[in-house]
């Protein structure tokens, strides 16, 4: 098949066919697809949340995905971290995910950071991104991402999950919204990095929250309405949901008057 465009624009015939099911949506349309193709998203964490997020974003045709994770795939990850497989055991998670995503969509450009990004490396990874997806597993990483996104002026889409519960929020301070630190002002002593090891988690719980990350990312990039100034709290044991209105805290130590420049 030739790649000549059928409609004035940048999409080829093959791309129009490939993405036809989402292009059919009136508020996504061809413009949404073209925007996705030009978009760059940094995904931090290629575990339970990052697996479905990365898979769906690559499948949807996001043009540039930056993947960051310093951990390697372990046997106990495979129950829920579905971008990896048995052949990935011992391999860095960002690299393992990139192999799977390259097979899924060869047109997505992938950039792999095989490290727990911090400081200057984190700022470099965020530079030029349209959106940062926080699929990490600790307060420390989430606070670091929050500060780096504030500095770079890039919105932060964040999810968390453990046991049978999860949370999701989009922090876009450019429009006066709250930041992650407005939600959790105190640096918690208890790091839940080992939360899944200690408290347990069902695979579909991170699957649902990771899929919601992809959903909100696609909506945000395509200019559709997203979760805004709210945290979605999901209690997946009872399937109860609660939406919590979020407001910027004027004295926030990251985005408000308490911030140290």
């Amino acid at each position, binding site marked *: 098949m030739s790649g000549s465009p059928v409609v004035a624009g940048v999409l080829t015939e093959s791309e129009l066919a490939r993405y036809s099911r989402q292009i059919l949506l009136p508020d996504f349309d061809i413009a949404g697809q073209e925007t996705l193709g030009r978009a760059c998203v940094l995904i931090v964490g290629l575990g339970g949340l990052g697996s479905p997020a990365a898979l769906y974003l690559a499948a949807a045709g996001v043009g540039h995905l930056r993947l960051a994770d310093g951990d390697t795939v372990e046997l106990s990850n495979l129950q829920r971290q579905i971008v990896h497989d048995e052949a990935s055991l011992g391999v860095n998670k960002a690299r393992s995910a990139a192999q799977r995503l390259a097979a899924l969509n060869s047109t997505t450009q992938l950039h792999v950071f095989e490290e727990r990004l911090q400081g200057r490396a984190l700022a470099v990874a965020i530079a030029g991104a349209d959106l940062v997806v926080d699929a990490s597993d600790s307060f420390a990483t989430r606070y670091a991402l929050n500060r780096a996104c504030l500095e770079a002026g890039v919105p932060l889409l964040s999810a968390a999950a453990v046991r049978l519960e999860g949370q999701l929020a989009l922090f876009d301070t450019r429009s006066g919204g709250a930041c992650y630190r407005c939600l959790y002002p105190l640096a918690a002593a208890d790091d839940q990095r080992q939360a899944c090891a200690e408290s347990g988690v069902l695979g579909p719980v*991170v699957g649902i929250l990771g899929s919601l990350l992809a959903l909100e990312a696609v909506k945000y990039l395509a200019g559709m309405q997203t979760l805004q100034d709210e945290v979605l709290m999901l209690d997946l044991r009872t399937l109860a949901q609660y939406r919590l209105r979020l*407001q910027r805290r004027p004295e926030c130590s990251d985005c408000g008057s308490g911030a140290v420049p």
Partner: protein
Amino acid sequence: MLRVLFFARLREQLGCEALELASEPGIDSIAALRAALSERGPVWKEALADANLLAAVNKSLAEPGTPLVSGDEVAFFPPVTGG
């Protein structure tokens, strides 16, 4: 009267998903409500001690000093960072 809701693992820890409290003069803020609930026993004290426990009043994120009046709905959520 205050209506208090507990979500996710708080619900399991406390064995309670909702309760109603007669308004008392002393329970006039989120911090005061947490202190009063903590008096219910060691399980309550421990469950409500988490610094990053989230509280909402009438579905808006609240702070320790957020005032409470009769008729308010308060919800408590455990912090989640896993992934």
